[in-house]
């Protein structure tokens, strides 16, 4: 039982990171109906930015919450700009030409390859170790379950960012515009919503969240390399589908759920099946409830 609760806690921490990445997938899908395969690599750039910044600014030598906050914010800003650039260069020109939905999928794969290969050239292919921005120690120990302060920081940051996103999407004009565009982009345009600017903003938000996930993963799982985004990227995408792609609370729930399931499977069954379980859950959900846990069923108009 104690072991189970401990695994559950670890799973939730890991799931929080998936959820942050999944949010970027789901928001972009919501406004563009595009599976942005480059998203996992933005998360890698986030972790790498944090690594270099922490060393350059001396946060690595003197761990502090202040250093962590600065690293997090700068990395989010850098990736926000990267996300905006990707949208402007690789997706918007195709949209303006009225190309179908498949051409952007291929440019997304191209951007993903570009980031991975540039990453290998610039950062080097060998793994790096993310500096411990928070000195690891046990924070609470209750009946055999321990919560380290790193886990607490990761969880708190993830939850705070999700709450912040919920606020932006539900309570601000920009958030209303995002919801309008994902509901019906042409109609939103007719109502005077600047659709292209909203799409750009969505990319900035999603990429910033991916950067935060990159920093948090660096704290809890320090080995980082230029290809680190591939697998978590695809799994976070699965998490987004679990919750119902295009649905923001769904992505949060899907991410947490996937993290918990994966950790439990790795803990109780076998870690070699860890990667497979995400996809098994995915298939099960798609066959039983194709629109995901939170998605509304859609009827097709003829």
């Amino acid at each position, binding site marked *: 039982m104690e072991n189970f609760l401990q695994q559950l806690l670890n799973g939730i921490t890991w799931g929080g990171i998936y959820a942050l990445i999944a949010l970027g997938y789901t928001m972009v899908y919501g406004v563009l*109906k595009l*599976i942005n*395969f480059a998203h996992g690599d933005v998360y890698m750039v986030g972790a790498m930015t944090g690594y270099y910044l922490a060393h350059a600014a001396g946060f690595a030598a003197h761990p502090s919450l202040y250093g962590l906050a600065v690293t997090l914010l700068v990395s989010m800003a850098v990736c926000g700009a990267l996300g905006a650039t990707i949208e402007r*260069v*690789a997706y918007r*020109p*195709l949209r303006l*030409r009225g*190309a*179908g939905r*498949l*051409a952007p*999928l*291929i*440019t997304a*794969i*191209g*951007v993903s*390859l*570009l980031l991975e*290969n*540039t990453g*290998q*050239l610039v950062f080097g292919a060998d793994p790096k170790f993310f500096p411990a921005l928070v000195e690891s120690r046990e924070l609470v120990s209750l009946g055999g379950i321990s919560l380290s302060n790193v886990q607490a920081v990761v969880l708190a940051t993830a939850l705070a960012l999700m709450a912040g996103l919920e606020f932006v999407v539900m309570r601000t004009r920009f958030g209303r515009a995002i919801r309008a565009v994902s509901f019906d982009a042409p109609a939103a345009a007719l109502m005077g919503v600047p659709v292209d600017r909203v799409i750009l903003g969505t990319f900035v938000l999603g990429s910033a969240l991916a950067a935060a996930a990159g920093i948090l993963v660096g704290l809890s799982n320090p080995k980082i390399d230029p290809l680190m985004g*591939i697998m978590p990227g*695809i799994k976070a*995408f*699965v998490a987004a*589908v679990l919750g119902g*792609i295009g649905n923001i609370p769904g992505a949060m729930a899907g991410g947490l759920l996937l993290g918990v399931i994966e950790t439990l499977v790795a803990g109780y069954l076998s870690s*070699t*099946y860890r*990667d*497979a379980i995400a*996809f*098994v859950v*995915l*298939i099960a959900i*798609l*066959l039983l409830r*194709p*629109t995901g846990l939170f998605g509304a069923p859609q009827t097709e108009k*003829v």
Partner: protein
Amino acid sequence: MRERALLLLALGLLVAADVLLPRVLNPYYLTILSRIGVAVLAAVSLQLVNGFTGQFSIGHAGFMAVGAYVSAAVSVHAGAAWLAAWADALPAWALRACYFPVPLLAGGAAAALAGLAVGIPALRLRGDYLAIATLGFGEIIRIAILNVDAVGGARGLSLSAPAHPGLDLRYEGLGAMYGVVALSVAVISRLVYSTGGLAFRAVREDETAAESVGIATTRVKVEAFVVSSFFAGVAGALFAHSEGYIHTNSFSFLRSFEIVVFVVLGGLGSITGAILAAALLTAAPELLRGLGEWRMILYSVLLIATMLLRPQGLFGQREFVPGWLRSRREAPRAAARG
């Protein structure tokens, strides 16, 4: 008469290629050429589902993996013993020629079965959900194989039989491989451009309308999926037998994405486009080798730029068939298609 002469000429060329190329080309070029053959077959078989039937599968590498592993297992566990037993009765070249189709058909059949098992549930889904499900199935197949110790698991599978040390189970000649690729491409193009093949394109253009004129859309989709999986399996078998060593890492979703890129970049619904894109994109990283570390960066930039400049793909839905390849019966139709 002309067709027969052409066929004989082609066969002669393939046999010559099979015998001569391994002697005059260095192994590096041979490997690239055989990888191009595999890529072309993988791309054309996926084109049947993605380009002609209008479904979107991004798990094609999973079926290649099934074909590769089943064919390799057949060769290692059974083929080696057969080859050794018949070694005295037949000359080596005749024996190899007789054995050649066995692993290919075994791999193709196994992949077709896997395609049937995946296709029936998955093809009820539409659009992006279908794509995501095929991605999931592809990865499940790969990870399942990774956990089967009889085919090497995480160590990979080498095409050698420890009981028969002198025996080489690999295909070195390119002629046999390109013969199989050409035959498969011919079968797929005859299929999609036949009268019956209109059903595939009808489903692509408008599923509801197709259904209303009596096309069993789900059945047509599953058929396309199974045939496509069969040829993916053959491609996997060719890959296994030309590389001589396989590992599940070669069949991850990145490989599936690569095949999707061939199909979309070549032009959805164009067999010639898929062939050209597969050949160009497989050769490109090697041709760019002089650039050292920059080559993969340039490759990705080229990919993005091509897609931005030609969103409909290199060929769109058009085909390019040289005049001498068109049979007289077919020529007016092909011209009308333009």
